[in-house]
């Protein structure tokens, strides 16, 4: 791999820039080796050529003081930085920058758990803290607080929240559970949001809004600053936890499942993020495609039927959990059971009904209790050299929308020669449809097909009124372009903010389609 330069910076300037960065963080934390260091700062699951996202260097400050000086160097040279925290945002780009030549700002070394407040139920963490780090720490100190983690447990507590990620306990909406934020602006100013702006505040991590505009959201999925610290509310361990699974026989049951689910969610009888998982996702975490089918194209229905029988799963598989004192769980279960029992063929399972070797059940059971694990990555073992990118549109919680979305994606997916592998996650009044597009990372033609399919899905979803909640670096502009109401008024507002808070345009140019003036099309 050949070395590249940051956009607009000449080789001698780049050498001086690196020398200045080394003065700030030390030689050992500026990375430029194209064989041993920089490959890991690209995305393992790209559908586009790696050269498009190859960084020129990476720099890893240890604290806010070093970060402040790194930003000073970047401003001086007008060098674009691409901020990552744990760098595990795979399926959405991982640590890879939006464009080649950026310098990756790696915050993994800022990995302190600054506070665990048992009484009020929160933790304060830096960007480099993973779910597993926090979980292990809570175990070590004997805390009775739970983590709410993303399915890949090596993900970061702070960055998953800033990417609008979700988990699987009642605290699954991570943005909702964030309270108190520290942000460094591009000019090096450190800002505490909300109650943290009050010196000596006692409620920095208890009340979200402070006085005046609530600005925390400006720093999620954005490039307006570098988030250096957040408070996250943690769920106290409940007196009881009883996860359950309900299987459904027919593909067309998705409509009825979603209709039954909506009132249960809106009325909070199902407190955790509710998952309706298509059979192939269930299969892919525990078997491989070649165990059942070696032909080309999507696996036939007859094969799907055999898998379902062998694995004791349905066409759709609903996962939820009861939390609380046993009498309360018993009462709630009666309501939930009766509601779903109205769907012919529904089968109900608790832990004692599923095998200890049932990989799908076991990892879902862990997720519902906030126990980090990596089992879901097994979906990539479905095919040799599997990699994936996730297409994730949002819709209302209705049977009609679920079915429409499912068919919209399934049909295009099958036509493109891929297996549909997806799930619906209902938060409260919204439904995330996660389509895990799995492809062979060593097959250039397949990658190109996956890339085209993804783009087609963006357009088809937008035409039907569905927007994505998050996306891969390769599709940020395209998806930002679908949020174009009133002559792209929202994007134009983002650009105005960007120009004010980061006039040098050094922070993550192009993140979610937001470009600094100097790199904007037409250079407004």
């Amino acid at each position, binding site marked *: 791999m050949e070395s590249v330069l940051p956009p607009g910076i000449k080789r001698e300037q780049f050498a001086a820039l690196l020398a200045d960065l080394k003065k700030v963080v030390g030689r050992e934390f500026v990375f430029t080796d194209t064989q041993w260091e920089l490959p890991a700062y690209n995305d*393992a699951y790209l559908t586009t050529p790696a050269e498009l996202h190859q960084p020129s260097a990476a720099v890893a400050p240890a604290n806010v003081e070093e970060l402040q000086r790194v930003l000073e160097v970047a401003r001086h040279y007008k060098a674009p930085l691409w901020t990552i925290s744990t760098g595990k945002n795979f399926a959405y780009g991982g640590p890879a920058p939006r464009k080649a030549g950026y310098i990756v700002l790696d915050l993994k070394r800022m990995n302190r758990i600054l506070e665990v407040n048992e009484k009020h139920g929160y933790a304060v963490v830096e960007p480099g803290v993973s779910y597993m780090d926090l979980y292990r720490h809570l175990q070590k100190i004997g805390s009775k607080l739970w983590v709410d983690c993303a399915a890949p447990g090596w993900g970061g507590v702070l960055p998953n929240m800033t990417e609008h990620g979700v988990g699987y306990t009642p605290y699954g909406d991570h943005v909702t559970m964030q309270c108190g934020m520290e942000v460094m602006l591009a000019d090096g100013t450190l800002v505490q949001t909300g109650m943290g702006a009050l010196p000596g505040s006692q409620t920095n991590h208890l009340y979200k809004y402070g006085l005046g505009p609530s600005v925390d959201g400006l720093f999620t999925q954005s490039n307006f600053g570098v988030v250096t610290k957040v408070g996250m509310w943690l769920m106290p361990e409940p007196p009881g936890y009883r996860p359950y699974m309900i299987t459904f026989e027919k593909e067309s049951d998705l409509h009825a499942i979603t209709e039954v689910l909506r009132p249960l969610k809106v009325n909070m009888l199902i407190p955790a993020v509710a998952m309706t998982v298509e059979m192939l996702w269930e299969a892919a975490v525990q078997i491989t495609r070649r165990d059942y089918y070696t032909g080309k194209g999507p696996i036939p229905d007859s094969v799907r039927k055999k898998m379902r029988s062998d694995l004791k799963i349905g066409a759709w598989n609903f996962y939820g959990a009861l939390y609380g004192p046993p009498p309360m769980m018993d009462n709630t279960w009666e309501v939930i059971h009766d509601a779903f029992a109205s769907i012919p063929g529904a089968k109900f399972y608790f832990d004692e009904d599923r095998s200890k070797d049932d990989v799908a059940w076991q990892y879902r059971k862990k997720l519902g209790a906030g126990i980090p694990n990596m089992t879901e990555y097994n979906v990539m073992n479905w095919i040799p050299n599997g990699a994936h990118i996730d297409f994730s549109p949002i819709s209302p919680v209705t049977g009609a929308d679920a079915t429409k979305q499912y068919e919209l994606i399934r049909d295009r997916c099958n036509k493109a020669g891929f297996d549909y592998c997806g799930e619906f996650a209902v938060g409260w009044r919204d439904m995330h449809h996660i389509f895990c597009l799995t492809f062979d990372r060593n097959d250039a033609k397949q990658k190109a097909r996956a890339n085209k399919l993804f783009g087609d899905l963006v357009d088809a979803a937008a035409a039907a009124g569905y927007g994505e909640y998050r996306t891969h670096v390769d599709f940020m502009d395209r998806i930002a372009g679908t949020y174009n109401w009133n002559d792209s008024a929202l994007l134009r507002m983002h650009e105005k903010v960007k120009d004010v808070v980061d006039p040098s345009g050094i922070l993550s140019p192009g993140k979610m389609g937001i470009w600094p003036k100097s790199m904007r099309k037409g250079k407004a």
Partner: protein
Amino acid sequence: MMKARFMSEVFAGRCALASVLMSATLMLGIVGAGGTAHAASAAAVSPEALEKGARLFVKNCIMCHERGMDNPGTAALSYLYGKGKGALADRDNLTPDFVRYFVRNGRGLMPAFRTGELNDEELKVLAEYLSAGPHPATPEK
């Protein structure tokens, strides 16, 4: 060029164990899965280094490479090498260069690990630990 050839062989898809062994052995002078040579025996690594290596293994690897098919790294290697041969802690034929290569470059579903999250000194200790395997006792998490 050498690296490109090695990569293409290793990542060729459905690559047989023999080809992995052959390419790894030829290109890096190491022994891949199924071999018998040790680059670093447990006796050659100090107890302190082994303890530190075990800690690094738990911190960085075990989420994917613990024993059991619910761990994607173990499952991937089991599909490649055969059932029961996927857990890294059970391997008796890893070498430091082999470990270093895959940690820094990734393989299959495993993304590479950045120097910013696992530095070269730590990687050296981790590689020595794994090369001194097998480690029948699962390190404490």
